[in-house]
């Protein structure tokens, strides 16, 4: 398998709109202490970077989509997007 080309991706997982995000709220509430104004709608998620070896970019992307939807995110409460890092 090591002969297959390698593709690097990032998966960004964020809480769905409307889902209470207490971490984001805590960050937002801390901003006035820094003297920062005008920032709102802070949402805290996570980013997972990974390398996939597959026949081509489409196949690699398919693997990432599957693991992002089944493992890296919980579709009940989170959204994800996939970034190709090259």
């Amino acid at each position, binding site marked *: 398998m090591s002969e297959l080309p390698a593709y690097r991706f990032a998966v960004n997982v964020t809480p769905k709109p409307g889902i*209470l995000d*207490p971490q984001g709220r*805590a960050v937002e509430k801390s901003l006035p202490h820094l003297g920062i104004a005008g920032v709102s709608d802070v949402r805290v998620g996570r980013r997972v970077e990974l390398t996939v070896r597959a026949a081509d970019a489409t196949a690699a992307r398919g693997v990432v989509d599957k693991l992002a939807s089944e493992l890296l995110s*919980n579709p*009940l*409460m989170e959204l994800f997007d996939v970034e190709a890092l090259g």
Partner: protein
Amino acid sequence: MTARVGIVLFPGSNRDIDALNALRVAGAEPVVLWHESVDLEGVSAILIPGGFAYGDYLRAGVIARFSPVMRAVASFAEAGGPVLGICNGFQVLAEARLVPGALLRNRGLRFVCREVALLPEHLDTPFTREVGARRPLRMPVAHGEGCYYADDATLDALERDGGVLWRYANPDGSVAGPDDPGNPNGSLCGIAGVRNAAGNVAGLMPHPETAVEAILGSDDGLGIIRSLVVSAAEYAATGAVSGTSTRTLAGGAA
């Protein structure tokens, strides 16, 4: 015959000994099931105890979902066997989609470890049949991600079908809404525990297994553990558990 009840042990489980004790107090024979095994050793009910399975990495319960033992537990549940998940065990069942909804980070952001009052909603289920009366039950919670969440359609279905088994109660006995003092984590509709549509799989965040003897400060949790044990005995004897509809659902989608 003594009912044999399996306790699923993941790396990071930490309430397994409490579960073992509770099952013994309730008259069952506990059988510890290792996470890498798919052999359920002939048990007739399963208890998934609390802790931090696989370090709670990524999301609480999600890595455990893909363990070999959970494949066996899913098959056992689909066949109608009674399964109860407590705290982290509830999170594992939710991630495995064996019970509806998800457990979000506590609304107050903190890990909450204190006693709560729990109102049992129905007294004829495999998990509440031995509770006796609809009165507030005192037992501890200890979790950082226990805020029950489900979308509106799921909540409606839960309420309509009697899927909510336990709710947090305020000191005056009323149901504790998300911002009420009796609600430790912001759970919607005060939901502390739910069951699946078939009725044979349930999860709750509080710890009935650590409230089974007066010396522990409360024995209000014993009725829940005894319910599981009675259901285990019934399942062993008859291949079904009263108060469930899994027979009609057997063979359905996992």
